[in-house]
């Protein structure tokens, strides 16, 4: 009987070694280990054995069963692995095909620049003030020390609606409104963004509608050196810590002293290039100490307080920042243009 068991093992292992698929494996499992399988059949003859032989043969039979089961399990696992591999192979996709991205919109470059500047000044403790685009001559000119026959009115031809009402030519009227609203309180620290309008023929660098941002600080002891410090802080946050500023005396009716402000050319770092006309400097701002008359119109006593103001053109800053060649691109809503500004 022992010999029969050994022969059975030999035969089964031989057969199993040739199995190529899970179906055949199952057949062989039934053939050898099933209830009516060959091993069971051999073991039926156990009853004829002596008491001494029985445990010996029983052990042999268990060994044979274990050996066959082990091989079957091993085979089974291999087949399952293969099956999984096959399935995964079949499920393979081309990962280089484009994904299903949600479409990404874009904020207008002028808005981006405006928000960037707003955020810098908010961080410096400024509030954002706004005012009407259709303004009175008083707020747009007179209260800014530009009486009706002032020669400086030549500098900006305006869109009038009536003799007394016009499209604002600058964001400065917001300063007067904000001062009046503050009711003499100090310190007042605001920036005023907005659309402005001038009778300029449109070309690559001029537009009859454009955007400005102005800043105003009024307090008991505001100095011109504070203006310089503020602007330096601003441009270094905007353009990087290596950037310097240069103030040149200039004239605005609403400030005294007045200055134009250049920053180190971002393109060449100040060495001189085409963009800065070889000077190393690019003009971006006008500024000055608030004229006493303007403070008076704003409801402050120029003997008690002083202030500074500055203003810049958003388009100019955006043109320089993104190296855009034509200001008109900002207003034509060409999606090929707008969609380029879709990044943080």
């Amino acid at each position, binding site marked *: 009987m022992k010999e029969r068991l050994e022969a059975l093992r030999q035969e089964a292992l031989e057969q199993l070694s040739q199995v190529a698929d899970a179906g055949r494996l199952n057949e062989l499992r039934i053939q050898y280990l099933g209830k009516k399988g060959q091993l069971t059949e051999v073991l039926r003859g156990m009853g004829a054995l002596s008491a001494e032989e029985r445990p010996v043969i029983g052990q042999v039979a268990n060994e044979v069963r274990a050996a066959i089961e082990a091989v079957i399990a091993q085979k089974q696992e291999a087949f399952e692995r293969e099956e999984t591999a096959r399935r995964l192979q079949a499920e393979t996709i081309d990962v280089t095909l484009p994904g299903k991205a949600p479409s990404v919109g874009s904020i207008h470059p002028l808005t981006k620049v405006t928000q960037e500047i707003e955020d810098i000044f908010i961080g410096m403790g400024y509030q954002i003030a706004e005012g009407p685009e259709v303004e009175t001559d008083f707020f747009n000119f007179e209260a800014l020390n530009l009486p009706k026959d002032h020669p400086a009115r030549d500098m900006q031809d305006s869109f009038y609606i009536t003799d007394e009402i016009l499209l604002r030519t600058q964001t400065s009227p917001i300063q007067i409104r904000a001062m009046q609203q503050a009711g003499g309180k100090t310190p007042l620290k605001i920036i005023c963004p907005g659309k402005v309008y001038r009778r300029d023929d449109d070309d690559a660098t001029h537009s009859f509608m454009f955007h400005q941002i102005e800043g105003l600080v009024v307090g008991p002891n505001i100095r*011109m050196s504070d203006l310089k410090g503020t602007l330096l802080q601003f441009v270094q946050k905007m353009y990087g810590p290596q950037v310097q500023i240069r*103030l040149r005396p200039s004239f605005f009716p609403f400030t005294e002293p007045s*200055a134009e402000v250049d920053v180190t050319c971002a393109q060449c770092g100040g060495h001189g290039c085409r963009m800065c006309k070889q000077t190393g400097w690019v003009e971006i701002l006008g500024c000055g100490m608030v004229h006493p008359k303007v403070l008076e119109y704003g409801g402050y006593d120029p003997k008690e307080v002083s202030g500074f103001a500055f203003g810049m053109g958003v388009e100019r800053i955006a043109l320089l920042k993104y190296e855009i060649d034509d200001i008109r691109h900002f207003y034509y809503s060409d999606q090929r243009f707008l*969609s380029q500004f879709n990044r943080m």
Partner: protein
Amino acid sequence: MNVSYNWLNEYIDLEGIEPARLAELMTSGGIEIDSVPARNQGVSKVVVGYVKAREKHPDADKLSVCTVDAGLGEDLQIVCGAANVAAGQKVPVALVGAKLPGGVQIKRAKLRGVESQGMICSARELGINDKLLPKEQQEGILVLPDDLEIGRDIVNVLGLDDHVLELDLTPNRSDCLSMLGVAYEASALTGRPLRLPDPAADLIVSAEKTSDYVKVGITAKEQCPHYAARYIKGVKIGPSPLWLQNRLIAAGIRPISNVVDITNYVMLEYGQPLHAFDASKVAGGRIEVRLAKEGETMVTLDGQQRKLEPHMLVVADAEKPIALAGVMGGLDSEVTGDTVDIILESARFAGATVRAASRQLGLRSEASARFEKEVDPARVIPALDRAAGLICRIAGGLVTEGIAEAGSAEAEPARIAISLDRINRYLGTSLSSLEIKTIWSRLAFEASETEPDSWIVTVPTRRPGVTRDVDLIEEVARLHGYDNILATPIEGPTTTGGLTKPQAIRRELRATLTRAGLHEAISYSITFPQRAALFPQLSGAGEGIRPIPLLMPMSEDRSVLRTTLLPSLLEAVVYNKARKTHDVGLFEIANVYHTAEEVLTKLPGEKPRLAFVLTGNRRKASWNGEAEPYDFYDAKGILEAVFERLGLTDAIAYEAAQPEHFHPGRTAAVRLAAGGESLLLGYVGQLHPDLQREFEIGDAFVAEIELAPVYEHAASRIEYRALPRFPAVERDLAVVVGRSVTAGELVSAVREAAGELLESVRVFDVYTGERIGPDKKSVALALVYRHADRTLTDEEVTAANDRALAKLEQSFGAELRK
């Protein structure tokens, strides 16, 4: 103002300060100088030559062969093509080896077989702007005065060894519209002393009295505070000497004749415009400065007949206007070659008066530019004397004794009190008293120290812009140097910055809309009337709102302020389509301008709005899917997302509406429930197919809503609700109703009927088709029931669901779909 460096050097020693350096100094001091061109554009080895003989070229009609003495010892043979060359002339001769502007080199050459040893030059060939030359000098060669020394370098003769400082003046620095003013500025910046001319030095006065020849009077005292005239007898009109012509040309003024040139020269020198009248043409020997009379006319120097208006100031003789004061002289009384006696005028005309006249007539001159900015009262008489003296010297003639004068030269100079402390506190500097005093002295401002470190500064009338202490502080700042002011942090209490609620909401709107794939547009606020007439329900046209017209638009296209945003976005769609961008998603946040007034008497309402447009595909056709075109529900969904972000979802309602220019079956009014009221915010819908056709665009889905109520009612506060502790029960309810019954009606009916246990109801399917009949549709609703404090029983849910169904059956004839 163009300033000759050499001329300026007469008033202040510029030794060691090159033109470019001077320009830098002036620019950093506040007088911007854009460029400093050299007058010599590349001329060398050109000398004065004498044409001894001129003969015809043997083989060429238009050429002549000249024998020229150029001071070389040997005569030159030069072939010349100019018609005006003649024997006996002094001319500029470019010798062999000479260089001319534009890289021209003169070589020995043969012209039609005749040797030419140089070239006789025209003004243009020498790089001179010949528009500034007398007409006869513009054509052909430049003929020089007879008295020039043969062989002299032409660079020297024409004053080309000079540079021109091109001043870009701000309105407060009209003092630099004169050579003397620029000299004062240069002196202040360099600390070098001035060498001022003595205005009366050249006067030759006769024994005759001016009052016997001319009397002056002012009727319009406000417009003319001061008028002065001198009478000069026996002048000889002719060309000016070269040095004078050269200086005018350097300044960009055309030489005309000695007397006129001298008036221009002195205008440049003193900043005081002058005018010379032919005395024989001034009727009655009387000059009156008055306002023009109604209907009066005169012919100005340029030959134009001018209609005068009563606001215009004229200089008149006993009969008629002879000059438009400060703007232009009259043709009749012009100085001509025959003039013998002249009346020379120097006056102060009010800036505003001159500006109004020059603007209205479109006549701007060097004189008007100076009067407009107010001339220095203290220079009226010196300039008159200076010019009269120069006329005596250059044009001959004798000045009669005395000045005919009306009005007064007096002008109070500004006296300004200022202290060292005030200056340093204003600028953030720590200047010393000595430094300040040095600055007053450099400016030639008289300062008396009233107490230690405090001054009363007397500002000369040549600096009318300096009237307040801050003006003086600016003078200190610019002479001290803006670069030398430190950068300091602001002292005092700290402030907190931040956005206002509307500003924060606008940022949120932009974030939400860009996440939805839209691009932000900024379009022009000024449009044309037909565009403004679109979408009357949005533009307010129905309620009498009218677009605001500009008084003087630049074009019809941009003549009124927009009352709605959508037309601009539709134009943008057209613009994009023309550039082959067919899938367009744009939004704009901007103001529209509403008024019911025909003529504005107060500021219009500026209403902030949000508008967007969607057209083409939301998603392009791809390897894994068909193209997905935008539809109404994309537009509405974007609004829903916006209102969700602003905490307004429960306050917003959409109702079918038929506003003009919208698709009548695919448009909703957007309403906001606030404070017991229902506010119309705007519309969302498809454009009317007719309008789509008009704009030649495909289906476009748009929305425009009012933002002011949104700003007001948006709830930024998040109200947290505890998570439910008891399970929900879900029931579906599918009913068949008539096609015209809206989902909104069904949902609100269910909400009302099902009671408090109903947590939410959602439409999850809408079906139309044959199986349920042609006029019917099936709407499937998912209802969720929940109680906060206990588990619901099946009975109570069923009861609530039955109530909902009963309500639908009752109100809409709904049948339960099995």
